[in-house]
């Protein structure tokens, strides 16, 4: 339910307009500085650190074998 609007806008009608002006200015500043779109620099790929056995896919018949293997 709307409880407000009791006092009416009378001579304060400019308050919201002033508020809007300030907010618009603030947002314009922020939006410009945050806009992520015009990024032309290609993202540099991080070189992967060589890992021993990288790319080797090992298979274990069951989880017990794998545990024994890894603990071993």
């Amino acid at each position, binding site marked *: *339910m*709307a*409880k*407000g*609007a*009791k*006092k*009416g*806008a009378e001579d*304060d*009608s400019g*308050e*919201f307009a*002033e*508020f*809007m002006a*300030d*907010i*618009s200015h*603030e*947002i*314009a500043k*922020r*939006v410009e500085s*945050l*806009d*992520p*779109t015009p990024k032309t620099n290609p993202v540099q790929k991080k070189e992967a650190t060589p890992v021993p056995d990288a790319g080797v896919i090992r298979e274990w018949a069951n989880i017990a074998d794998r545990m024994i293997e890894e603990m071993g």
Partner: protein
Amino acid sequence: MSVVNYGTREITCKIVYYGPGRSGKTTNLQHVYSQLPEERKGKMVSLATETDRTLFFDFLPLDLGTISGFATRFQLYTVPGQVYYAATRKLVLQGVDGVVFVADSQSRQLAENIESLQDLHANLADEGLDPRALPLVMQYNKRDLPPAEISTVEELDETLNFRAVPYFAANAINGGGVFETLRSIASMVLGRLSAPAPKGS
């Protein structure tokens, strides 16, 4: 958290009016609502008891339209000031971007102001928010009361405003200081706007 979303081109910020019971939080929102142009007037939701005190919370969505290409929305909330509605206050504080602390200037209400401020800090900490970092504005309300009944702004500021954040003298019932307060907190919140985190992060 407030987010400027470049995908949907939306900005949404949540501001909570906090303070002891009967300090004038709902009155702040009512004044803002009364000043909105008809085309922007959504619904102000107030859940009040029979004695007209806020039972759960007030909610005023401020749809500001498209600004710089972004649909901009402020969500203004109040919390119930009474001590026994602690759970509701915690709930309303979730995802808050900025707080207006509405203090009652009456000298006899000083202890309630302090208690409410401590409650705010405790609840923010529970939410994982740093009470020292969150945008905060102090409003010393009811400045229209006889001087003998109210503390001076300086006294209130010295007692309550240990973070030295912006503060405003107000008499919300007549609209005094209401928009100044809102402008200040909105500006602070917007100053911290961040782009949305990438999905999956």
